[in-house]
């Protein structure tokens, strides 16, 4: 097998896993854009999504087409509850405090999942088929290809919504100044809830995809850290940034893992993050905050 073909295959695999990162990053971005909250519990919500799917598909024996929407809805419901119960009381507190609340939330979610489902890793029922996909001679894992397609479609939909939907303005206005958004007649709590519901639902959906590839376990939330890198590189409030950032990180991880060794994946990613922070603190596509004296 030629080196070039090998490189091409590795690149495809990297784009595929990058798409999963993009999708998870999207969950970060949606919530951040509306509420200025960096939700570090996105990884755990993703894990929860995987477990919900597991409960519906393996536990209740529902078919995948029913279990997936249910898992996403479940994630959204958790998002709504979290927003009402934990985030809204923190309105007006420092961003760091809210960030820490989400860290606490992550811990609570992990504990709950361990309590209910135990700590053993589990495999999700297969629903994507197994036949491999070949692009020319190059092999792509079917699940990875599907993940890529899903992520691309979802992100495209959100891009369109933000650009052409009046609600997109409401969301961004709320993000800039809650009180002022209120005074313009925007239903601020509604925007918050909506952002959390959609964001957490997206994370849950990503969890189903991720779980069907690598299985689920209470510790799979670590994936959220890589996605965090993606949003920092791409820009915390940019949907396009999530997409591009995810693909870039996916590619770099794949290349680093292949040509340097698996142990270099994480360190390359985080090294890149530091570089990105030093050069462009607001990410490739993020909005620069206007700082006044």
């Amino acid at each position, binding site marked *: 097998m030629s080196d070039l073909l090998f490189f091409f295959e590795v690149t495809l695999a990297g784009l595929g896993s990058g798409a999963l990162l993009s999708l998870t990053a999207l969950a970060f971005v949606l919530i951040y854009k509306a509420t200025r909250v960096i939700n570090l519990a996105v990884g755990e919500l993703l894990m929860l999504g995987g477990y919900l799917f597991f409960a519906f598909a393996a536990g209740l024996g529902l078919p995948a087409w029913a279990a997936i929407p249910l898992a996403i809805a479940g994630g959204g419901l958790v998002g709504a509850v979290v927003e009402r119960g934990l985030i809204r009381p923190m*309105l007006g507190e420092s961003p760091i405090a809210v960030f820490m609340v989400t860290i606490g939330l992550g811990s609570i979610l992990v504990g709950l999942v361990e309590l209910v489902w135990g700590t053993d890793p589990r495999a999700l029922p297969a629903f994507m088929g197994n036949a491999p996909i070949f692009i020319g001679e190059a092999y792509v894992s079917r699940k990875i290809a599907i993940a890529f397609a899903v992520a691309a479609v979802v992100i495209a939909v959100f891009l369109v919504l933000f650009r052409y939907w009046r609600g997109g303005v409401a969301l*961004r206005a709320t993000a800039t*100044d809650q*009180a002022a958004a209120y*005074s313009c*007649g*925007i*239903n601020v709590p509604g925007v918050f809830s909506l952002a959390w519901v959609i964001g957490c639902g997206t994370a849950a959906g990503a969890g189903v995809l991720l779980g069907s590839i690598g299985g689920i376990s209470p510790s799979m939330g670590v994936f959220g850290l890589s996605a965090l890198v993606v949003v920092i590189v791409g820009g915390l409030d940019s949907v396009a940034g999530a997409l591009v950032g995810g693909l870039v990180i996916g590619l770099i991880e794949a290349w680093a893992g292949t040509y340097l060794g698996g142990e270099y994946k994480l360190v390359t990613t985080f090294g890149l993050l530091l570089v990105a922070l030093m050069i462009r603190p607001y990410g490739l596509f993020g909005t620069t905050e*206007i700082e006044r004296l």
Partner: protein
Amino acid sequence: MAADILLEINNIEVVYNKTVQVLRGLSLSVGRGKIVTLLGSNGAGKSTTLKAVSNLLALENGAVTAGAIRFDGDDISRLTPHALVRRGLFHVMEGRRIFEDLTVEENLTAATFALSGRGLKPTPFDLVYQYFPRLFERRNGRAGYLSGGEQQMLAIGRALIAQPSLILLDEPSLGLSPVLVEEIFTIIASINRDLGVSMLLVEQNAAVAFAVAHYGYIMETGKIVLDGPTERLVKDDDVREFYLGASGGEGTKSYRDIKHYKRRKRWLS
């Protein structure tokens, strides 16, 4: 209650953080189509009064603990801030509070949410641009890059979009040069005249406030201490001494004549 009263504040008390009382039995009313100004020094509770009306107090951990506020005849204490805006009560907050990350036009779009559920035809943005031609020039630029005066114009422009019957205006002159203050107040007066919008105007700059207002209230430490039609207030000796003193007129003392260091030992608080 008289039908021509649009906003009536009756004996309200406001407490922040469950401990600090800011308003102590404040009452005032705004007549339909009138500009009413509320004057007082910093910390007297002027902004708090406006926030109590627009229900934005909760965001700052404040609450109305007694009294009633009626807008257009209805008790509004239980309405959410956005529902209140959608009834036609628009609060232009202190410090402009425009959406800096959005463009000028998107700022106006954001204000269209105030029309939700009111069955009104959307205001053409042209109306805003007619009053504030400068905004038109910069309509696609990021609002954060506007000058202070332009930001104030945008803030008032947003209120126009909402087609309110009452605008609460919090210190529109803050940080603006005299010529801009004059300009903005001229527009405020004409909006009131052209569109019949009532306004409750909180000001620091008593002179310009009296120039546009029909009626005035003066508050100190959470209470109204004096009120009356502006014509009468401007003639009041105390008002002249404490609120209009600096702005000329014969007999104003120079700061240089005031006694200096160790003049007196006072205990303030």
